């Protein structure tokens, strides 16, 4: 086993990240939290664009759907953080599936523009539907707290994001990249990566 192979580097890296909040300052912790969040976002985009070869550019908009749903379920429906998180994941997955429906009919650049258009419409609604979304100034959502751990809200978010990033990476690896679904991913990729012949 190589000393610098992924089997050594990954556990060391995860251990360092678990310990990091003990010695880094709050700003570095905040940046690391963003790193985990963007890693999760990139993981999803890579499955769609990299593995399935779908020009689906709605991920950033769906990120927004998830964020607003988490905040609104807490602020408007009074749900506790874990339920709001679960609800947001369900709502976003549902919206994602709806956005995915055109993909059955549209390919390549046509799918790209419909998903980009969905992103523009989402952004517009978030800015202009002020009574629900707070408009350009946005919403202040309460942070999570898990009783009995003695962690501050921002530390809790750090660990939640780290755990989610690791688990989601493992799940994606197991199911889509190495697992039983891999052949169908590759098939979709091979089909969509071909370029149409110029000006038929």
């Amino acid at each position, binding site marked *: 086993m190589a000393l610098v192979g992924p089997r050594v580097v990954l556990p060391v890296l995860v251990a360092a990240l678990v310990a990091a909040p003990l010695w880094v300052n709050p700003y570095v912790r905040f940046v690391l939290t963003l790193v985990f969040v963007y890693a999760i976002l990139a993981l999803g985009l890579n499955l769609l*664009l*990299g593995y399935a*070869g779908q*020009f689906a550019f709605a991920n950033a908009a769906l990120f927004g759907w998830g964020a607003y749903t988490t905040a609104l379920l807490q602020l408007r429906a009074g749900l506790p953080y874990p339920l709001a998180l679960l609800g947001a994941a369900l709502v976003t997955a549902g919206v994602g599936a709806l956005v995915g429906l*055109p993909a059955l*009919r*549209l390919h*390549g*650049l*046509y799918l*790209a*523009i*419909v998903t*980009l*258009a*969905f992103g*523009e*419409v989402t952004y*517009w609604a978030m800015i*202009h539907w002020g009574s629900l979304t707070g408009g350009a100034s946005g919403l202040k959502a309460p942070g999570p707290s898990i009783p009995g751990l003695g962690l501050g809200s921002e530390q809790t978010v750090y660990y939640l994001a780290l755990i989610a990033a690791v688990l989601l990476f493992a799940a994606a690896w197991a199911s889509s990249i190495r697992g039983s679904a891999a052949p169908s991913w590759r098939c979709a990729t091979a089909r*969509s*990566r*071909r*370029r*149409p*012949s*110029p*000006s*038929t």
Partner: protein
Amino acid sequence: MLVNLLASGLANGSVYALVALGLIVIYRATTVINFAHGEGFMLAGFLAWTLYVGLGLSYGSALVGAIAMAALVGIATERLAFRPLIRGSVVSLVLATTGLAFLLRGVARYLWGGKGSDVPFPPVFTVQAVRVGDLVVSSQHLIVVGGAVATMLVFAALFRCTRLGRMMRATAENQRAAALVGIRVERISSLTWGVGVALAGVAAVLAAPLTLLYPDMGGPLLIRAFAAALLGGLGSLGGAVVGGFSLGIVEQLTAGYVDSSLADVAPFLLIIVVLLLRPRGLFGRRVVVKM
């Protein structure tokens, strides 16, 4: 009110149509959408501003400078983000031009950033508004539409009737056959990208007095031009022009009759509906996928 809305819709639409036309010229030759196309527009606009406002040169020299700048951006894009990846997948090509777009935005911020938030471009000709009976039409709108239509006609003549245009069409049709009859395919490919982005440069100079210049203006414009091209059916030059004008008019009619804030998303709602009902766009032909 309807006439004024139509006039401003046609003016905006002619800008979208010119940019979409250039996008499709490149698409037909390469089957790639140039995601750095909007940056050619933006840089041409800024250079025109520097020449016309900053240095006080004539409008004509600003126009020539802007077109040269846009053509240069097109040729550079072909060299840096297309030719090295010519055998690559669509995803790599799209991401390469997207990356270049971000780089060019950074360059524009470095060169022209910090001059207030936006750079205004003064009206070129201070002509009175044109009156036809009861109708009053802004002369700036007429200049934009007239300039855009003239550019399209010049381009059509170049593309259809000249030797260079025929070589460009032949290369887009079949590269190997074009090379066999002695066309220097790589040089023509460079020129195609140059001409395509130069059309966006003309659009930038025409549109500059109607809009403000800012380094991030290329992105929203590219999405609109891309939407216009897809609305017309990807690959159809006439379709791109019709799509561009339709998009501009829909935008202005929505702003006038429904809600002005809705104007920004109306074209996208239109695109979603049209493509769901007719996935090939209005004038699109079936795309044959090479196996």
